């Protein structure tokens, strides 16, 4: 079954209509996603949970000093999104993306709908890219919703006083705005690396529960491994390390080397995961329903 196209070719003479392409496949995938309760609930949670969390953090008598910027949560609203970003990288962002990316291929296995999907008049490759793009779009949208909600609710509920940076420097509000938004933006590369990894697990396992849980668990293991001594040489290759690259933006002078390396490592994770997943899907023998 190595053919690119599953659909029976129509007699050419009777086919004046253009064949549906990637756009059509993407449209369908997005429509399917839009109907999913889980996806809708995830977006709603990303929009509403930060408000609640900011309220809880604000109500704390003792600020959470164990995490970066935790000690300043009562002093400026700019510190709260950074505190939450530190948290988000640990398991929240991997989970948010895996909820869709882990399910998007394996869901067809679970429902037994591969045959239906693959007998449409688009190629396997087109289906692969449509599903991947859908997962990527979802991941980025959820991150944007989460970031916007966190930053807005922090500023509204706590205020926009100047922020103390990671070199002790005082950052005025108008710069803090850019740096905090930029810091959240730096979570996109590792987030997409997790998306690609979840897609790979989704294709290989065919089991949505596994493909959703495994990236989160592996992310937490990597997070833990990254904090251990003696394995520092592994740190640059971990999926979770780029989630901390934003520290460089909040230092003075700023440093970008971890960001640059994070971009490279996230891209490598993505290319390897997606190539593997692509080949695995192409070679898959879909016989059963």
């Amino acid at each position: 079954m190595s053919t690119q196209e599953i659909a029976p070719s129509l007699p050419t003479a009777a086919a004046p209509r253009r064949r549906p392409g990637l756009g059509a496949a993407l449209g369908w995938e997005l429509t399917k996603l839009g109907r999913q309760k889980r996806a809708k609930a995830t977006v709603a949670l990303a929009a509403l949970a930060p408000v609640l969390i900011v309220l809880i953090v604000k109500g704390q008598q003792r600020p959470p000093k164990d995490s970066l910027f935790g000690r300043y949560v009562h002093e400026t609203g700019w510190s709260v999104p950074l505190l939450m970003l530190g948290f988000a990288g640990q398991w929240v962002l991997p989970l948010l993306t895996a909820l869709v990316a882990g399910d998007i291929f394996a869901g067809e296995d679970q429902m037994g709908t591969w045959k239906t999907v693959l007998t449409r008049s688009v190629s396997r490759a087109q289906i692969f890219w449509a599903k991947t793009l859908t997962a990527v779009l979802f991941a980025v949208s959820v991150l944007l919703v989460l970031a916007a909600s966190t930053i807005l609710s922090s500023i509204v509920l706590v205020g926009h006083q100047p922020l103390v940076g990671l070199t002790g420097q005082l950052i005025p509000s108008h710069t803090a705005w850019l740096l905090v938004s930029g810091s959240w933006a730096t979570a996109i590369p590792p987030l997409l690396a997790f998306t690609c990894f979840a897609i790979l697990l989704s294709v290989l396992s065919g089991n949505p529960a596994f493909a959703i849980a495994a990236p989160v668990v592996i992310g937490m293991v990597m997070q833990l491994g990254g904090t251990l001594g003696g394995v520092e040489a592994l740190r640059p290759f971990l999926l979770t390390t780029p989630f901390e690259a934003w520290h460089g933006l909040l230092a003075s002078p700023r440093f970008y080397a971890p960001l640059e390396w994070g971009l490279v490592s996230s891209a490598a994770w993505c290319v390897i995961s997606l190539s593997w997943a692509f080949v695995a899907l192409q070679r898959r023998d879909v016989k059963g329903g």
Partner: protein
Amino acid sequence: MTRIRNLSPRRLIPWAIGILALVVASAALTSTSQSSVTRARLERDLPRTFSNLYVQQAALLGHKGVSAKSMHTQAQCDKGGPKVADRGAGADWICYVSWRDPNVDETLMPGKFEVSAHSNNCYTAGGPSKLVGLLTITDKHGRDVPNPVFEFDGCFDPHGSNEPTGVNLEPTKSSPTGPAALSIATGTLHPDVRGVVRPTLSCAPGQEGCGGSVVARLDGKRVGTATYALAPDSKGAVEIELPRGATGSRLVLAVTPVIGDTVRPAFTVRIAPR
């Protein structure tokens, strides 16, 4: 239906090989591990961060004449004492920090900061409250506000300069830090009527003074022992009774120090003829 169930042993072989290769590669990488958390990077970043925050504290307190530039902050860091390499994450970093501020007693410098460094190149530092104040301070308007330098976080560039800073701030005490050494005056001794000689012992300045025992031998024959205990930088004498009828003129005093040290293991003194 789940595909994960129909994994046969034959299909597992490539996975096992792949995982094994990953483990071997990781182990090879790990063996060359060098943490980016180093003494030089901490010694560069801690003064920067501390100065910036200290200026904010001075502003809160209404102290004049303090700027990050005028402070000339320096730090000397050490991890886990002299026997541990000054590299890597851990809560056992100690940094001595000194800075200039006309508003504080500079004889209290350098301040001893406890630093907990993390493997992600961030650290948490806490200063001595006699120099930096308590958790909350009263600002110039009389309000209680959090003290920005009581405890603070910082992150440094893992690719920043790792050249030694050459800062040496370890507190220097007025007293020498080495052990005190004993010496015995090697003049000629005159025995008294009972045949007792009193060699003069002197203890050099040093920690805890001198203490121990002296074994006296007259021309190779053991004639007596004595113990001594002297304060640092002081003199004293021990009594050694020479046996009646003992002959010889070379008295060898072998010193076994218990506290402090000795200049030589044995001293030779002359005995005047009786």
